[in-house]
């Protein structure tokens, strides 16, 4: 009969996250489109929006960036936010039957779902860069480190927010509806279509509380140094991420056992 090995807690976590990851992958791309859909959907959206943007403001460039790249960073990052949030918040509940295995804990499900969405978007990003190469749009990566950092911070921020929502949804189911309503306007207030510098400065305070906006503008700035992002700040993104992460992990530590025992 099959022997089991003694594992450290960290090894168990690794094994469980890996097992969940494969399991999710299996059910995620099970329809006829498979993984192509993950690419076609954002790509067609970006093409449409960047065309719309050039119609409105004229010219192929937006603040010295090609309109396509401008739209790509906006779309990809806002989709990254929306998808990771939805996936990580739903993961806790969806995997509830699996907590019958004592090795499987809600946070493993959240980490696995987050990792998955982030990797899918990374794949899409790479594919779009390839697309840009073939249709000869200028590809620039002036500060790749900052770009990576910004994306990492956004993922971490979103996963923490998702963890908080996921926990709350186990206690009060209706929180799910609240989450869906408050994420809807994110697309419009995060500077996907217009940069913050396009807005009159007196409206900035109504927009620049939003870390997703900061992430999008900073990623454009990192890719194209000449973009000249105004009104956004890396340290704001760093601190909102740290605060959200701290809040989420403390709430998780206090509530997770109670949440899955209900």
């Amino acid at each position, binding site marked *: *009969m*099959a*022997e*089991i*090995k003694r*594992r450290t807690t960290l*090894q*168990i976590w690794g*094994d*469980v996250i*890996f*097992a969940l990851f*494969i*399991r999710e992958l*299996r*059910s995620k791309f*099970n329809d006829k489109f498979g993984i192509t859909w993950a690419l076609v959907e954002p790509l067609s959206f970006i093409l449409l929006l960047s065309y719309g943007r050039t119609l409105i403001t004229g010219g192929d460039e937006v603040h010295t960036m090609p309109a396509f790249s401008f739209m790509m960073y906006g779309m990809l990052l806002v989709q990254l936010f929306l998808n990771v949030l939805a996936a990580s918040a739903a993961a806790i509940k969806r995997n509830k*039957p*699996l*907590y*019958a*295995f*004592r*090795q*499987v804990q809600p946070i493993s499900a959240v980490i696995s779902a987050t990792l998955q969405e982030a990797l899918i978007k990374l794949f899409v990003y790479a594919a779009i860069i390839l697309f840009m190469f073939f249709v000869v749009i200028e590809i620039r990566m002036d500060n790749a480190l900052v770009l990576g950092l910004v994306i990492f911070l956004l993922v971490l921020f979103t996963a923490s927010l998702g963890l908080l929502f996921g926990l709350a949804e186990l206690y009060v189911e209706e929180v799910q509806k609240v989450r869906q309503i408050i994420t809807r306007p994110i697309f419009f207030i995060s500077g996907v279509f217009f940069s913050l510098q396009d807005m009159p400065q007196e409206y900035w305070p109504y927009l620049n509380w939003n870390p997703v906006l900061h992430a999008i503008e900073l990623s454009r700035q990192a890719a194209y140094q000449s973009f000249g992002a105004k009104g956004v700040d890396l340290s704001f993104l760093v601190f909102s991420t740290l605060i959200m992460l701290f809040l989420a992990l403390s709430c998780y530590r206090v509530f997770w*056992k*109670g949440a*899955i*025992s*209900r």
Partner: protein
Amino acid sequence: MISLQGVTKYYPSKLGNQYIFKDLWFDIPEGQNIGLLGSNGAGKSTLFRMLAGSEYPNRGQIQTNLNLSWPVALATGIHPQMSGRENTRFIGRVNGVIDLDSYEQKVRDFSELGKRYDLPVRSYSSGMRARLAFACCISINFDIYLIDEALSVGDPKFKKKARESMIEKSKKANLIMVSHDIDEIRFFCDSAIVIDKGNLDFYNDLEEAISVYQGEHR
């Protein structure tokens, strides 16, 4: 030994918290096949799920150095869109099985699913699902198997096979089982824990426990 240290467990409800256990201190001895007896709502399943680590007490803790199985009965964690083989690998990975390939083979042989092992579980009948779940559990070496009406799965032939393998297991490992079927408990267990009003009593003699349990029933 599994020791329950100050375990308090309640479920919130409209009538306030419904306490199942209040500050319970108890040691479940090793090396015995134990049946859990108790009337409906006494907390058998709750205790069972807490032992398995599927649920947690509100206060206190449960400590053990033994390897406990998960509650076998339900088709726990079986994903309908994955094949039997993929489900097996998932369970193997989660439980830390060393050799996944040979584990896969054992489950395939035991569950008698044949070629269907590679089809998605949603095409299985409920009996076949239960067979898969039981095979996944029995093919791993645990110190204690938690059996929750699991031996009543499948057709008579599989039932017989499951019983035989369980008896074989109980030579090296132990069982803790919940069942309303007294005959089944007599068959597998040699001692019992009677749960009554949030108290646990261990009886080394199974018959004595059964008479206490049935006595309080009347």
